[in-house]
C-alpha cells in the first residue's frame, strides 16, 4: 500500500461524486472522472497483474495505450471487456474488475512459482522443448496457461456501433500542443478540420505540465481552437482511437463515447501530431511494481491526484524529469533525482549523480541500488527519453531515419502523405512544436532552425554488464538475456527477434519495448541502429474490438440474403426457409422430417401438380438491333436463329471454355430477348454482357436491363398443370414446349413460358411484383382442387436430378466444358466467333480423358450415395476417375439416383464403376444422366 490520493490535486476528478468498484474481490474507491488506473493507484493497489510467462507481479507503468502490465478484465452490467488497459478505461460505479493471467488473484497468484523456473524457460522454449512429442499432447495444457483475458461466449456485445463515413479538408491526429496549434491554424484559413484525440481532453502534455501557447494560457488556446474548428464546419473527436491509415488518405477511427461510433474518414491533408511515449530505464528487476514512467506519474498526480508513493527515486538523463520531481515534491513526496549526466544542472531537488543498478523487493519496490549503495524507496520513476509515436506514419508507408543527436527514430520527410509535427517529429521543445504545428496548419514553410548538433550527454540503454534480469518487454516477459540468446541462435533480424521472443507483440505492441529490443540487438550484433532496422507497423494502432469494426454487419445482416416478394405467404403456408444462391427460399413446406417432406412434395408434383416460387431466376432484358449479335457472341448456343415467341436453353462460357452459367433465353420480339440466368449469377452475367456490349457490339445498338426483382415468377408443374391453371382462371395461350406467350392477369400482361426444369408439363407464370400476391392467392385456391401442393427447393432439386438437369457449380467444376455435358453440337458446327470458342480446341479440351456428366445407379440397396464420393475402377490401382456431384433418393423411380463427372463417362455408360467414400466401396452402373422419362413423353402432360 504505497499509492495515495492527494487532498487537492486532480483536475479531472469530481470529489462530490464518489464511486466504488471491485478489484480482485476488494473494494476500490474512486471519484467520477477517474480511470481504472488512477483509482487503483490512489487506493494503494500495487499488483495489478501477473506477467505473461513467469507470473511475476506487475504494477502500473504508463498512462495510455502503451501500458504493458495493467491489463484487466472488466465487467459492468451485461457488458464484458476482456484485456482492458486500466489507463484507457473510465472507472464506473459497480464495475467488477479482475486481473488476468493470475489465479485466484494477482496478489496471491498460484502460478508465481513459475518464476523460479525461469532458467529453464528461455526464449524459444516452446520451439525447443515440445518438438519431441506431438504438439497436440501439450497444447491443451499450454493453451490453458497462456494468454491474457478470456472471452466470455455468454456475453454477446450489442451490434449497434454505427459505421459512419466522413470527409474533411485537414485531419489532425493528436490534440497536444502541436496538434491544437495545427488545427487552429488550418481552421483559421477556412478549412474543415477534424481533430482526433485519444484522451478525453485537448492539450496533451500541457494538461499536467502546464504552459502557454503563443503567450496565451494553454486552456484558453485549446478553448479557442475548439470554437474556431467547430465554426469552420470541422469536428473534434475525443476519446477516439485513430487506429489505421489506409490508401488515398483514408483513416479508421473508433469513438468510444456515447454513442459509440466507428468512423471512416477521408482527408485531403493529414497532420500527424501523435506525440511520444516515455522510454523506460534498464536495471535489474526493472519490472517490479513501483517502477513507473515518470511522465505517467506526473499525469496521474495532476489530473487525478493519484500519487504512486511517498519515497521516490527518479532516474533521468535530461531536464524533462525536473518538473516531475518538482510537482511531486510540492505534493509532499520525498523525491531524489538519480541523474545519469556528468554535468547536471541544479534544480533544487535532492540529487545523486549516477545510475540505478537494481531494484529490490518481493511484491514491489522497497529499495534500490544506486552507484553500489542501497537506498530505501517505494517507487522508482523512469524518464528514459522519448520515442516518437509514428505508427500511423509507418502504416501510411512512411520511413524512419535514425537521428543520433536526438537519440530517436524520426520520420523521413516525403515518404508518407502527411506532415508530422511535435514530439512525433522528435521536437520536444514546446515553443518549436507549436510553431511547427502552426506552420503545418496554415500551410506555410516552418522557419528554419538549426538542429541540435551534439548528441545528448547521456542516453539510457540496456546494459549487459549489470547483473540480474533486465526486462525489455514487460508484457511478453522478454529480458535482455533473451535478446542476446536470440542473437546467438541466429535470430538477429528484428523481425525474427520479434517472432522468436515475442518481443513487441500483444496489446501494447512494444511501445515501451521495441526501442530497447532494437538497440540491444544492435549492440549485441555490433551493428548500427539503422542497419538493424525496425519491425513493420500494421493497423490497428491499438486493440479495437471487432464489434466496433463490424458494426451491425453480423448474424443475419452479415451477408443479407435477398428476400422473395411472397415470403410472408410462404411462411404462412409453413415454409422452412434456407439460403440458396444468395436468396432466402422455401426449402420445404410443413412440419416433419425434411427429407421425407421433400420426397412427398416431389411425388405430388409428378402425380398431379406442384407450384414453386421461381422468382430468383435471373431476368435480363436485352433489347436493340444488336441484341442477337450480342447473345451470339456471349453465348455458346446461337440465339439469332431463335424465332420470336420461342425459348432456347444455352450456356455462357468463360474465355477459357469453362461453363460459367446456363439458362434459357426467351425471344420476345425480333429485337427483344429475355435472358434467364442462374439465381446466383445475375450480376456476373450482366457484367459479361455489358463487357461485350461496351467493347464489341456497341453501346448504341443494344441495352441490358436487369429486371429480376421487378417480377414474380410462379412455376406450375405436373401432369395437371394445365387443368390447375384453368381452375385458377388463368387463360393459357396455346404454346408448344419451349414456347413463350402472353396472357392477361388482373388487367396486366402476364408472361407465360412453357419451360420445364422438372421434365413434366410446366408453365412459368410471371407478373409484375405488385401482382404477386394476387397470383399467389389464385393458385393457392386452385391447388387443392387438383390434389396439388406448394413444393420447396428441395423437391425441385430432386425433380431436376431425376431428369439429369444440371446446376452450374454443383454438377460442373472449374474444368467442365460444354461438350463434357453432352452439348458438343455448337462446338463442331458454329463458324462464327463466340466467347470461349478457341479454348474448346486446345489439346486439353480435345483430350480423351475428360470428365463427362453421367448418371449412376447403385446395385446394392436403397441407401443414397454420398455426394462427393470418388469413382474408381472396378479393378486395379485406386485412382479417382471423377466424383458424385448430386445424389438423392428418387421417389418416382423408388431408387437412389446420382449425377457424376466421370472420366470418359459417356463411353462407360452400361459399364460399372465403384463408388468410394470414407473407406467404403459400393458398386454402381454408369447410366445416362437422365433417369426419368429420357424420351420426354411427360413434357406435354
Amino acid at each position, binding site marked *: 500500500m504505497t499509492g495515495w490520493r492527494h487532498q487537492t490535486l486532480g483536475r479531472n476528478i469530481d470529489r462530490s461524486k464518489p464511486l466504488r468498484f471491485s478489484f480482485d474481490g476488494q473494494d476500490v474507491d474512486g471519484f467520477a472522472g477517474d480511470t481504472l488506473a488512477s483509482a487503483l493507484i490512489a487506493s494503494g493497489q500495487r499488483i495489478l497483474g501477473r506477467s505473461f510467462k513467469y507470473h511475476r507481479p506487475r504494477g502500473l507503468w504508463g498512462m495510455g495505450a502503451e501500458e504493458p502490465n495493467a491489463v484487466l478484465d472488466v465487467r459492468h452490467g451485461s457488458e464484458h471487456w476482456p484485456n482492458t488497459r486500466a489507463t484507457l478505461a473510465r472507472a464506473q460505479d459497480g464495475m467488477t474488475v479482475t486481473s488476468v493471467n493470475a489465479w485466484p488473484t494477482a496478489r496471491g497468484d498460484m502460478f508465481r512459482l513459475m518464476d523460479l523456473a525461469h532458467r529453464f524457460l528461455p526464449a524459444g522454449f516452446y520451439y525447443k522443448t515440445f518438438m519431441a512429442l506431438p504438439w497436440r499432447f501439450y497444447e491443451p495444457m499450454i493453451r490453458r496457461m497462456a494468454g491474457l483475458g478470456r472471452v466470455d461466449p455468454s456475453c454477446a456485445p450489442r451490434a449497434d456501433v454505427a459505421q459512419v463515413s466522413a470527409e474533411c479538408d485537414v485531419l489532425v491526429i493528436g490534440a497536444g500542443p502541436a496538434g491544437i496549434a495545427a488545427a487552429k491554424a488550418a481552421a483559421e484559413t477556412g478549412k474543415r478540420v477534424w481533430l482526433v484525440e485519444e484522451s478525453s481532453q485537448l492539450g496533451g502534455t500541457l494538461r499536467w505540465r502546464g504552459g502557454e501557447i503563443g503567450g496565451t494560457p494553454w486552456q484558453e488556446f485549446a478553448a479557442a481552437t475548439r470554437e474556431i474548428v467547430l465554426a469552420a464546419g470541422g469536428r473534434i473527436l475525443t476519446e477516439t482511437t485513430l487506429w489505421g491509415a*489506409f*490508401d*488515398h*488518405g*483514408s483513416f479508421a477511427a473508433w469513438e468510444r463515447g456515447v454513442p459509440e461510433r466507428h468512423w*471512416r474518414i*477521408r482527408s485531403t491533408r493529414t497532420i500527424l501530431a501523435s506525440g511520444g511515449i516515455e522510454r523506460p530505464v534498464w536495471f535489474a528487476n526493472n519490472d517490479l511494481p513501483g517502477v513507473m514512467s515518470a511522465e505517467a506519474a506526473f499525469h496521474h498526480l495532476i489530473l487525478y491526484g493519484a500519487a504512486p508513493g511517498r519515497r521516490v527515486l527518479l532516474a533521468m538523463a535530461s531536464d524533462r524529469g525536473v518538473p516531475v520531481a518538482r510537482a511531486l515534491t510540492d505534493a509532499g513526496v520525498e523525491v531524489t533525482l538519480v541523474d545519469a549526466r556528468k554535468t547536471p544542472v541544479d534544480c533544487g531537488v535532492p540529487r545523486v549523480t549516477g545510475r540505478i543498478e537494481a531494484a529490490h523487493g518481493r511484491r514491489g519496490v522497497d529499495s534500490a541500488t544506486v552507484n553500489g549503495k542501497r537506498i530505501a524507496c517505494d517507487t522508482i520513476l523512469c524518464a528514459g527519453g522519448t520515442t516518437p509515436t509514428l505508427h500511423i506514419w509507418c502504416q501510411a508507408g512512411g520511413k524512419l531515419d535514425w537521428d543520433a543527436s536526438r537519440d530517436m527514430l524520426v520520420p523521413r520527410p516525403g515518404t508518407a502523405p502527411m506532415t508530422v509535427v511535435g514530439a512525433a517529429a522528435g521536437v520536444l521543445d514546446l515553443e518549436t512544436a507549436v510553431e511547427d504545428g502552426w506552420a503545418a496548419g496554415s500551410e506555410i514553410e516552418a522557419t528554419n532552425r538549426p538542429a541540435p548538433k551534439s548528441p545528448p550527454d547521456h542516453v539510457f540503454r540496456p546494459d549487459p554488464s549489470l547483473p540480474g534480469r533486465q526486462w525489455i518487454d514487460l508484457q511478453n516477459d522478454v529480458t535482455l538475456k533473451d535478446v542476446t540468446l536470440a542473437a546467438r541462435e541466429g535470430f538477429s533480424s528484428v523481425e525474427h527477434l520479434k517472432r522468436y521472443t515475442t518481443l513487441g507483440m500483444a496489446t501494447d505492441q512494444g511501445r515501451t519495448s521495441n526501442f530497447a529490443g532494437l538497440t540491444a540487438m544492435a549492440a549485441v550484433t555490433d551493428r548500427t541502429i539503422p542497419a538493424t532496422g525496425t519491425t513493420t507497423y500494421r493497423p490497428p494502432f491499438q486493440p479495437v474490438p471487432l464489434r466496433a469494426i463490424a458494426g451491425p454487419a453480423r448474424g443475419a445482416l452479415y451477408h443479407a440474403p435477398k428476400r422473395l416478394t411472397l415470403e410472408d405467404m410462404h411462411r404462412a403456408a409453413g415454409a422452412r426457409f434456407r439460403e440458396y444462391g444468395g436468396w432466402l427460399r422455401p426449402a420445404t413446406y410443413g412440419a416433419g422430417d425434411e427429407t421425407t417432406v421433400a420426397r412427398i412434395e416431389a411425388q405430388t408434383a409428378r402425380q398431379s401438380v406442384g407450384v414453386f416460387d421461381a422468382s430468383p431466376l435471373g431476368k435480363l432484358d436485352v433489347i436493340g438491333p444488336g441484341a442477337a449479335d450480342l447473345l451470339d457472341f456471349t453465348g455458346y448456343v446461337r440465339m439469332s436463329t431463335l424465332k420470336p415467341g420461342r425459348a432456347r436453353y444455352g450456356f455462357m462460357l468463360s*474465355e*477459357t471454355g469453362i461453363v460459367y452459367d446456363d439458362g434459357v433465353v426467351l425471344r420476345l420480339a425480333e429485337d427483344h430477348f429475355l435472358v434467364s440466368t442462374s439465381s446466383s449469377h445475375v*450480376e456476373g452475367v*450482366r*457484367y459479361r454482357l*455489358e*463487357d461485350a456490349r*461496351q*467493347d464489341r457490339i*456497341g*453501346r*448504341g445498338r443494344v441495352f*441490358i436491363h436487369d429486371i429480376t426483382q421487378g417480377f414474380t415468377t410462379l412455376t406450375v408443374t405436373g401432369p395437371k398443370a394445365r387443368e390447375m391453371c384453368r381452375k385458377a382462371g388463368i387463360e393459357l395461350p396455346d404454346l408448344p414446349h419451349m414456347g413463350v406467350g402472353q396472357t392477361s392477369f388482373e388487367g396486366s400482361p402476364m408472361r407465360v413460358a412453357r419451360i420445364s426444369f422438372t421434365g413434366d408439363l410446366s408453365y412459368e407464370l410471371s407478373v409484375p411484383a405488385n401482382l404477386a400476391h394476387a397470383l399467389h392467392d389464385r393458385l393457392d385456391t386452385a391447388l387443392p382442387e387438383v390434389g396439388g401442393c406448394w413444393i420447396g427447393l428441395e423437391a425441385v432439386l430432386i425433380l431436376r436430378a431425376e431428369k439429369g438437369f444440371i446446376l452450374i457449380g454443383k454438377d460442373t467444376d472449374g474444368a467442365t466444358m460444354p461438350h463434357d455435358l453432352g452439348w458438343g453440337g455448337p462446338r463442331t458446327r458454329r463458324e462464327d*466467333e463466340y466467347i470461349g*470458342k*478457341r*479454348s474448346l*480446341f*486446345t*489439346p486439353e479440351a480435345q483430350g480423351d480423358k475428360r470428365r463427362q456428366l453421367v448418371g449412376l445407379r447403385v446395385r446394392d440397396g436403397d441407401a443414397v450415395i454420398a455426394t462427393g464420393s470418388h469413382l474408381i475402377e472396378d479393378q486395379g490401382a485406386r485412382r479417382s476417375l471423377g466424383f458424385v456431384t448430386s445424389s438423392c433418393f428418387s421417389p418416382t423411380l423408388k431408387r437412389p439416383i446420382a449425377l457424376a463427372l466421370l472420366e470418359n463417362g459417356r463411353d462407360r455408360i452400361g459399364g460399372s464403376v465403384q463408388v468410394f467414400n470414407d473407406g467404403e466401396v459400393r458398386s454402381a452402373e454408369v447410366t445416362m444422366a437422365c433417369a426419368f422419362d429420357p424420351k420426354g413423353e411427360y413434357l406435354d402432360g
Partner: protein
Amino acid sequence: MQHFPCPFCGLRNETEFHFAVEAGHSRPEPAERVSDAEWAAYLYANKSPKGESREVWLHLSCGEYFILSRDTVTRAVLGSVTLPGVTR
C-alpha cells in the same frame, strides 16, 4: 481504402470497383487461325508492371468499363478514360 475515378460517376471507393483485365490485349481472331500459344498468351500472359500500369476496371454501380492508369507501387491514380470508341 483507395479512391478511383469512374469517368462517368467521379471519385468512388474501391469497393465499388472490380478489376477486369490488363489493358491493351486485343482478342486474337478468328479462332481457326489462332495458335495454342497465341491463345494461351492472350488468356494468361500479363505484363503486370511494377509502377505505371493501364488496366480495365468495371464500376459495379453503373456497369461501365473504363481504363484506369495507376502506379502499382505507390498506388497513385494517374487518370481514367472511357473505353475507346464509346459513343453516348
